[in-house]
């Protein structure tokens, strides 16, 4: 046996050759646990609807009804490369894309003139330097020089790329809060799919403002693993927030659809209905489901989408913002004392959770609480948030203010409560002066012994 050098060099080159062959694996947005508990016949249309409206992480879809900045870009074909019969892609040089983002792969491309007018292709390859675009070949389209097209979701994709670089490891590909790093974090990263954010400037019933999310991204959340991304530019932050809200909308739409179906068509419901007591057959249930899908589901879907969208739009209106009716009461010992009395009073019951000393160890932390979603007791003592995580009341002596350390931030926490947590809104029950007294008292606690 003799080894030839040339064979060996070939062998050496093998790993190198295999490298360019690596392609982006297919990834899908995940569906919630509840969706997966539906009977397959009910889950399938829900999933299909979501994919239709939102696409997948590497193939985003534009759905114009949403309050999202998708970012369309107008382009035109300059020259078309001749394609052979077997080649699956059509390549052409495009103009008008230079100002756009440099990664356009996966975006939908809608033809606005020429033979394929109205058709939507997907960008398979894009070279920023040369302006070459490749789309999949199909019978309907035949790009000619001069044809125009619209590239959709460019802004959203920009946000996605930033999100995948900066946020995805914790918050997950679908904003579900279970990225690979999340399992090491305490508190766990936010699940965006409920559309609820804690630290907002809005009233207790409103969603978060775009600026609130932007501020959280920029300032971070002290005391948690959410770091400050202050050095991202404003444009980058707004693109990220745009994408995050879009993820929220997707999650909320999913939740609304599933809630509609869950009572009747979950695996559990199916088992009950087809059991002896239920007395129905599986076919009957499926027949009923089919009727529902044909008659009511489109409306349900449309209502879910529009109600979620409206809620997000409303949150950004002037009305949603919490603005104090009077200026801050001077931070005097008297004011703090009044605040302290209020803190301990029956009117606010602050002490029941935060403890008489503000150490976060009130009596409520020793009780078993009921989960409002399931009406069952939590397995652990203490307070829980809407995401089901245990939530110790804040130790007010730590000097860590997750939602910001300005007086107005604390005011808003008191006025509107903290969304998704047992912290109630006092805007209705306390006067402005009382709220400010409380603010003064709470904000003096960390420094009580420091002089």
């Amino acid at each position: 046996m003799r080894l030839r050098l040339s064979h060996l060099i070939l062998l050496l080159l093998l790993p190198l050759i295999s490298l360019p062959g690596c392609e982006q694996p297919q990834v899908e947005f995940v569906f919630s646990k509840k969706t997966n508990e539906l009977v397959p016949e009910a889950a399938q249309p829900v999933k299909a609807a979501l994919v239709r409206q939102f696409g997948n992480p590497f193939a985003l879809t534009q759905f114009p009804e949403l309050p999202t900045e998708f970012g369309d870009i107008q382009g035109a074909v300059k020259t078309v490369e001749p394609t052979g019969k077997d080649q699956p892609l059509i390549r052409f040089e495009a103009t008008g894309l230079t100002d756009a983002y440099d990664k356009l792969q996966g975006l939908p491309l809608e033809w606005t003139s020429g033979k394929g007018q109205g058709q939507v292709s997907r960008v398979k390859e894009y070279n920023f330097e040369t302006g070459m675009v490749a789309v999949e070949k199909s019978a309907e389209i035949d790009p000619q020089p001069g044809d125009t097209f619209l590239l959709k979701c460019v802004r959203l994709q920009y946000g996605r790329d930033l999100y995948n670089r900066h946020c995805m490891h914790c918050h997950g590909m679908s904003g579900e809060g279970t990225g690979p790093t999340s399992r090491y974090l305490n508190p766990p990263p936010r699940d965006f799919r409920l559309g609820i954010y804690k630290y907002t400037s809005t009233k207790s019933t409103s969603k978060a403002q775009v600026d609130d999310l932007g501020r959280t991204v920029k300032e971070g959340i002290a005391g948690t693993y959410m770091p400050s991304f202050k050095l991202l530019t404003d444009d980058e932050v707004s693109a990220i927030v745009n994408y995050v809200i879009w993820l929220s909308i997707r999650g909320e739409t999913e939740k609304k659809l599933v809630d509609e179906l869950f009572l009747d068509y979950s695996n559990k419901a199916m088992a009950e209905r087809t059991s002896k007591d239920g007395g129905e057959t599986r076919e009957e249930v499926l027949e009923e489901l089919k009727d529902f899908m044909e008659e009511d589901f489109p409306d349900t879907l449309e209502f879910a989408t529009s109600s979620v969208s409206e809620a997000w739009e409303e949150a950004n209106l002037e009305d949603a913002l919490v603005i104090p009716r009077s200026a801050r009461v001077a931070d005097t010992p008297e004011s703090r004392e009044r605040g302290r009395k209020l803190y301990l009073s029956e009117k606010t019951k602050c002490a029941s959770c935060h403890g008489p000393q503000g150490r976060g160890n009130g009596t409520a932390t020793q009780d078993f609480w009921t989960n409002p979603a399931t009406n069952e007791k939590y397995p652990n003592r203490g307070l829980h948030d809407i995401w089901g995580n245990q939530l110790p009341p804040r130790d007010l002596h730590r000097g860590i203010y997750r939602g910001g350390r300005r007086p107005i931030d604390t005011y808003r926490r008191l006025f509107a409560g903290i969304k998704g947590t047992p912290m109630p809104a006092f805007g209705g029950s306390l006067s402005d002066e009382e709220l400010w007294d409380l603010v003064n008292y709470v904000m003096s606690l960390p420094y009580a012994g420091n002089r």
Partner: protein
Amino acid sequence: MGKGWCLFFLFWPVAAVVSCAMAPLVGWSFPYDNAQAASNLGIRIDGLFYLILVITAIVFVGTQAVLVYALWRGANNREERASYLHGNHKLELIWTIIPGIILLFLAIYQMDIWADFRIKKYYPEVAVKDPLAEVTARQFEWRFRYPAIGKKLQQKPQSDDLYSVNELHVPFGRPVLIQLRSEDVQHSFFMPALRIKQDALPGLQIPVWFEANKPGTYDLVCAELCGWGHYKMKAHVIVQSEDEYQNYLKNLTERQSYDGLGKIAATENGTESEATE
């Protein structure tokens, strides 16, 4: 064949020297404008670096040249036998003593710089008397605490302290001192532009002084592995004039005591970076 190998071993030191020589031209040098440090001490440190660079470059070129020449001779040795030589005391002495002197010189030469840099006795008095801020590193961000305008930094936080995150403002033209601490694990305060690096050690407060000599925005990064997000510890140090610095503090005070009403209401959700650009 032997000559080919000599060229092979000649090729790489030449490539190394060439790439080093062209490095400053293509920007493979110290970061920021013209690779110059933004502090006088930094410039002195760079001077030391260049001194060592020159010495090592001479040694590198010398040893590699002699090596390749020796190889060349060895490859073309037409003698029947190599030369029988067990050593040479004189040579050994020469090449022990000369590098010894150079190394000792380097060691003594840099002591001044190090003393000015880190030995507490030599810290500038102005800076020690009135520390600028407390820098707290935590996973994975930098948090800064300045004393209120007109007050001195206290060991423990005060109610009127000013806070910011990932953005440190520093006046130039005077030495400043920061108190460096860590809230959780070990971090390292690394400002490439000022050639400053100091680990933030949990449980200790380490004073670090520096004096920037020109305005600019410089990166502050973490240089000690601090967990999965080590690379995320990204902050700016904004070096500005004394006036601008005081203005910044005023703005910060105003913003931090904002009660939701009044003048800055329009930009209330605006972020602090606006003030810096």
